[in-house]
């Protein structure tokens, strides 16, 4: 028995790690798993991005020229599913895996084997989902929201899509349980909850949201499945059901889901802005309470996605007002970030640039969200490109920019090398300009009445679609720079110090060397 314990001690001392494929298949190490999540998310980002480019190519001019309408519908459905469940969510989980144990001084995630399980489910789930593209009839084409009765008319892809979503849900729930248990049980002595880094806080709250709503999505798609195959009548009025019921159940999941896609982004930005402003975060406690309030409110706003479907007036009023209420805690956050920068000694390294772009552009998405929240106005905006512009503003220069900011912030900690700052700034400016060229015109298109999810459009919409498509292609290809920068940093570059940034960032992750050793905080650090 003495054998085993010396072996363990040896492992900890000498940064020993297994080699070859087995390391990645069998790993229980939070850093390995975080890396796999991030690489997988990047891959899916390009797969989903390629689909977006198919969409933008087709919309470059009116008429149907490059793809047939059925394939177009598959592309827009798969683009959404892949970007949400394959790119943004796994990227956040990857960051959580890498950073939460480092930020709270824990030796690893609390449940390391389950951690690897929740990762490895994903490639298999997406294999199932993407395999549908090669079936007769192609992939799911009814939109990622899967509204019945349309989605029930799906072909061979239907069952595979449902089961793929079940698997993704299982993965998310396990990941969320791991985050909660890690943060609640593994904090270094002295790290009270209100000393927790904000990235951990926002992820903790996100994890609660995930556990609460992913099972609801599982239930909703299970009802679709039984309605399709086993004769149930959940969404069939002839049997006493109602297709609108699906929308209620779906959006009870769906609205917290959009906060799942943004809360960790808030956390990342809350780490970066203080560092490069060389000031502590303004209103830390308020940030925590604002995050919790947003999460709470997210459960009582879902029907604002379905104002036009028909609901009692009282329902419309309730959901309109509760939705607008979310602007309050979100405003608290935006003002706190701004106030953190106020009279700070700012410097504009790539992570800070992305964080500032996030602050401005996410706020634009927030404001268009407020416009959409107004029920009578929403009757006009519903299912137009205005909605597309809105949620892409919060997701791309919102969530995705925050992820990129996080990667640029922590990359030297992972690889041990600084990356090419100049190239990263190129990446930033190309992305930031093109993302606005891509999505801002879609506001105009939507207000002018262009419907979303349709392969063709009236010729009056041509000009702004051309602009948007040009922006789309520039944005898409600019992301190759991101891959190149990461790749180069993984191989070579100036040696990063433990602190990485001159700005002297605070947090336990900066007390370990760069690259972070395979095992960190075997002994918990003391937090004052």
């Amino acid at each position, binding site marked *: 028995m003495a054998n085993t314990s010396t072996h363990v001690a040896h492992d900890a001392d000498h940064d020993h790690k297994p080699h070859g494929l087995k390391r990645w298949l069998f790993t229980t190490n939070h850093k390995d798993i975080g890396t796999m999540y991030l690489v997988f998310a990047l891959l899916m980002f390009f797969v989903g991005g390629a689909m977006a480019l198919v969409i933008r190519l087709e919309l470059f001019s009116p008429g149907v020229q490059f793809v047939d309408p059925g394939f177009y519908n598959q592309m827009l459905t798969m683009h959404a599913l892949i970007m949400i469940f394959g790119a943004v969510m796994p990227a956040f989980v990857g960051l959580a895996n890498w950073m939460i144990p480092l930020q709270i001084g824990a030796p690893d995630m609390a449940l390391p*084997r389950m951690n690897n399980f929740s*990762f490895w489910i994903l490639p298999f789930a997406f294999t199932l989902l993407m395999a549908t593209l090669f079936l007769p009839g192609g992939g799911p084409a009814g939109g990622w929201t899967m509204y019945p009765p349309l989605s029930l008319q799906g072909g061979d892809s239907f069952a595979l899509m449902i089961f793929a979503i079940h698997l993704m849900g299982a993965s998310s729930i396990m990941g969320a349980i791991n985050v909660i248990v890690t943060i609640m049980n*593994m904090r270094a002595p002295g790290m009270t909850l209100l000393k927790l880094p904000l990235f951990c806080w926002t992820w903790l709250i996100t994890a609660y949201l995930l556990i609460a709503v992913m099972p609801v999505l599982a239930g909703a798609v299970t009802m679709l499945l039984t309605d399709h195959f086993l004769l149930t009548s959940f969404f069939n009025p002839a049997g*006493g059901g109602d297709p609108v019921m699906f929308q209620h159940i779906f959006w009870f999941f769906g609205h917290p889901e959009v906060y799942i896609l943004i809360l960790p982004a808030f956390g990342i930005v809350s780490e970066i802005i203080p560092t490069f402003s060389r000031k502590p975060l303004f209103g830390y406690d308020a940030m925590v309470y604002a995050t919790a309030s947003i999460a709470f409110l997210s459960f009582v706003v879902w029907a604002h996605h379905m104002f036009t479907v028909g609901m*009692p007036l009282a329902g419309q009023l309730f959901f309109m007002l509760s939705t607008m209420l979310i602007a309050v805690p979100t405003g608290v956050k935006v003002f706190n970030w701004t106030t953190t920068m106020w009279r700070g000694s700012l410097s504009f390294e790539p992570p800070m640039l992305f964080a500032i772009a996030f602050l401005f552009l996410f706020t634009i998405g927030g404001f268009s969200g407020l416009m959409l929240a107004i029920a009578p106005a929403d009757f006009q905006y519903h299912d137009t490109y205005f909605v597309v512009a809105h949620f892409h503003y919060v997701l791309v220069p919102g969530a995705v920019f925050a992820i990129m900011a996080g990667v640029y912030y922590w990359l030297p900690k992972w690889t041990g090398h600084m990356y090419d700052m100049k190239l990263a700034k190129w990446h930033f400016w190309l992305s930031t300009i093109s993302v606005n060229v891509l999505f801002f015109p879609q506001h105009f298109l939507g207000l002018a009445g262009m419907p979303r999810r349709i392969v063709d459009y009236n010729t009056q919409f041509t000009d702004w679609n051309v602009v948007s498509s040009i922006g789309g292609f520039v944005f898409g290809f600019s992301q190759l720079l991101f891959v190149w920068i990461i790749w180069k940093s993984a191989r070579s570059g100036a040696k990063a110090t433990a602190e990485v940034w001159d700005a002297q960032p605070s947090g336990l992750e900066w007390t370990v060397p760069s690259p972070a050793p395979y095992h960190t905080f075997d002994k918990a650090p003391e937090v004052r």
Partner: protein
Amino acid sequence: MATTHEVDPNRYYVPHSSPWPIFGSVALFVLAAGAALTLEQTTLGPYVLGLGFLLLFVLFFGWFRNVVDENQAGMYNAAVDRSFRMGMMWFIFSEVMFFAAFFGALFYARQFSLPWLSGEGAKAVTNVLLWPGFEAAWPSNGPADLGPRDDGSFETIPAFGLPAFNTLLLLTSGVTITIAHHALRAGKRAQLSLFLAATWILGFIFLGVQIYEYHYAYTDLGLTLGTGIYGSTFFMLTGFHGFHVMVGAIMLLVIWLRVVKGHFSPERHFAFEATAWYWHFVDVVWLILFVFVYWL
């Protein structure tokens, strides 16, 4: 394997590598693909599905044996124990939310869909144009009277027959597992073993009664999955509950076997408690089911 060593209270046990997660991912993949192929009625489907279940069984057996061995070898300190507890609690919470979706569907159908189909509120036109003459009542198989019988009729299972008996079974099993828990903490192993056995036996009897009830519903009552919204909510809610009872009863059986092998101490018995929580969760879901599905 099962050598004993001292628990280091300061070292959180992190396993070094494990084949089970990737094995489990493959198992779930085969299971999902098999289920899809079966539903699409391909000849290969049931075989793939069967293989999936087999792999799943191997997964649970292998992974849990691994964990039990590590536990018996004393590799888990109090912090690891706490992680397991929190993990189990949040897992049960996720299950609660899964059932919430189906209860939500039940309440929505009763409170909104059916009244609206019969023309209540602002939906009068739906009734006049699509389903003239339909009047909402519960239980309902909808305006088209869906179901296996030609005349569209069906009967329901009265609450105060078998379902009430089943309620009694589950409540009793809740008491027996609590007695078993007290016995475990007092070190009375014989009593522990006896009451734990009673618990899983009650669980399996419950399942037997449910199977009988399903058979009766299908053959004699015209009540099937296809019997409109009543059949849908009835079978999906009781079906998923029954599935959870089965899982819970298997868990009880496994920890009973572990008790017989001499596992668990009066101080440390996480697996026992986790199973007990799960069993109580299944019990509470049943009580809600009994009230809203069978009774009211």
